């Protein structure tokens, strides 16, 4: 038990000013404001933990002393850290972990959590140092080896990363994160070897976007497009507004392009030209308002994906009579967006077909006017 008040000293120049809601330039220009802000920052943090805290800023350093009155200071701070990390509140957890590490540099829980946080923040050399120390102290820490592997991989040392993941898997064959990360490295040079790992990881982590994207991308690399596409769709659906979803969307767009162009050896699709031309004529007659209604009804329908490779006319719209194939609807939407808001992303590049259709449309218009 550590009954002493928890205290530490931090040089102001080592304080990360980006933790404060005040611009660093403004703080550097005003030393009194800087001292006041740092003092208030630590006072607020330790006030939340209860007990009494004393914070003083003198001679370029912050002196913090916290007395919890009851309980063990290390455990109280660490529990608070874990609570914050579970909430994803790294911003508040980080200074507490930094304090703990300063006082308890060989505490394996602190090394693991602080090391992972540093890795997530891109402070990779420091992260590797802490995590290497962790696996030195606790060599059977499978998750520690995984975290170390991630830090190495992020630090562009793939070989050491892979070795760490393999050690993690030897210690715990069901470690899904080690599987996923090992697979990601293998996929770059030997995608076929990565597939069994991805398969198992995807079963263990069915809602993990990164796993699904890696799995889908790996299948694409092997030319197994039909298997890849539903996995990428699922990856996007988990959180459509995320960086991983953006990568999956890009992969799917590329895939759709390859399929679209594959049928005509990379040339222009005449059926798409005709669909676009028909849509242009229709929109000319209907006006902008109706154009908007049709375009955005297709866009709403397309949120769940339109199958552009199936020629069956299996879609209907409320705003337009008839049955349509997926490619036909995408073409109508593309033409509509060109009229309403050319900056909108239709999710597919039909620009070559559109240019051809526009030529035909303009030709017909000029004949009509003559």
């Amino acid at each position, binding site marked *: 038990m550590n009954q002493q008040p928890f205290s530490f000293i931090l040089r102001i120049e080592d304080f990360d000013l980006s933790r404060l809601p*005040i611009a660093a330039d403004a703080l550097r220009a005003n030393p009194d404001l800087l001292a006041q802000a740092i003092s208030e920052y630590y006072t*607020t943090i330790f006030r939340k933990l209860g007990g009494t805290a004393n914070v003083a800023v003198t001679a370029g350093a912050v002196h913090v002393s916290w007395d919890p009155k009851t309980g063990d200071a290390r455990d109280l701070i660490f529990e608070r850290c874990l609570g914050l990390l579970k*909430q994803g509140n790294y911003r508040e957890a980080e200074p507490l972990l930094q304090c703990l590490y300063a006082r308890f540099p060989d505490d394996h829980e602190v090394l693991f959590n602080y090391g992972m946080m540093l890795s997530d923040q891109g402070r990779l050399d420091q992260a590797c140092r802490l995590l290497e120390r962790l696996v030195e102290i606790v060599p059977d820490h499978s998750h520690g080896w995984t975290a170390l592997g991630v830090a190495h991989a992020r630090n562009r040392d793939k070989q050491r990363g892979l070795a760490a993941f393999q050690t993690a898997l030897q210690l715990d064959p069901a470690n899904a994160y080690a599987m996923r990360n090992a697979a990601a490295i293998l996929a770059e040079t030997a995608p076929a070897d990565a597939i069994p790992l991805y398969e198992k990881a995807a079963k263990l982590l069915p809602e993990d976007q990164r796993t699904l994207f890696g799995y889908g991308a790996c299948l694409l690399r092997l030319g197994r497009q039909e298997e890849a596409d539903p996995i990428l769709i699922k990856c996007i659906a988990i959180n459509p*507004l995320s960086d991983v979803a953006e990568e999956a969307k890009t992969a799917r767009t590329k895939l759709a392009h390859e399929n679209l162009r594959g049928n005509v050896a990379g040339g222009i699709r005449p059926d798409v030209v005709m669909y676009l031309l028909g849509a242009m004529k229709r929109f000319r007659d209907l006006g902008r308002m109706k154009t908007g209604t049709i375009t955005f009804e297709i866009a*709403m329908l*397309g949120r769940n*994906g339109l199958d552009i490779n199936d020629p069956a006319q299996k879609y209907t719209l409320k705003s337009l009579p008839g049955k349509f194939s997926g490619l036909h609807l995408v073409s109508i939407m593309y033409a509509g967006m060109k009229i309403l808001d050319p900056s*909108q992303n239709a*999710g597919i590049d039909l620009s070559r077909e559109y240019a051809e259709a526009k030529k035909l449309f303009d030709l017909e218009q000029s004949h009509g006017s003559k």
Partner: protein
Amino acid sequence: MSHAMAHRMNSDGTNQLIEAVEKTTGFKVIVDTVEGISDDAQMISARPEMPIHSIRVNKTKLPYADYIVATQCAMLIRLWSNPKRIPVFSPNTDKVHFFADRMAKSKPLKQFPARTATETALHLAQGLLHQLRSAPMEIQTVRDCRTQCPDLLDMQTDSVEAYLRLLSQNFAPEIRSIAPDQTWKNSVSMNSAYALNWSGITGSILPMLPYQSAGFADIAETLLTEISTRPDKTSEAYTQIVDVWAGHLGLNTLYKWEYRNGLQ
């Protein structure tokens, strides 16, 4: 295909706000991504030829997408409280130019060639009006999201504090030295209200420290009180707040309100 269109967000609070927008305005909300903009998002509210509200989140801000969409929806709910009378902030061009010309002759800008001074002054005047139009609504939506999206508290904290850092760059010597005095004071006054609002929400004086030390505590209190005394989530309350803020800051001749019918 057309996977660019998304709808269901991760946050329950955000989804409820999206539903509230759709119910209040009668138009669907489409959420999408966009790149190459400096703002958090680009929002285009419904109009006859585009019968949807389009919210496009900056691709560099995707980790905050739920919060960004929530704030945009909170704005829509207020602006569209009466869909037949949606306020549109419209600068009085002649008066803005006159204001800018006068600013161009002020001390920090006089040192530049006349054309540069005029262009800079006009840019600053337009920026000030943009701030007048948006700052009260930003404060209101911070409050709305605090109460309606409890699952976004951490995301909101990150987002608001990053914004506070940006706003407080006004205190950096290189900014202070080139900004005309009255413009700088007007801008910082509005920022101080934003900081005071966040101080009140979080119970921390940190955001207010630079404003207090520069003597903006009173104006912050005055401006924020004008918002707190008009708690209605209506476009009328919003336009009244902008008008009283403009009165406090001496900007009330520079714009007028126009209204459009969102249902036509």
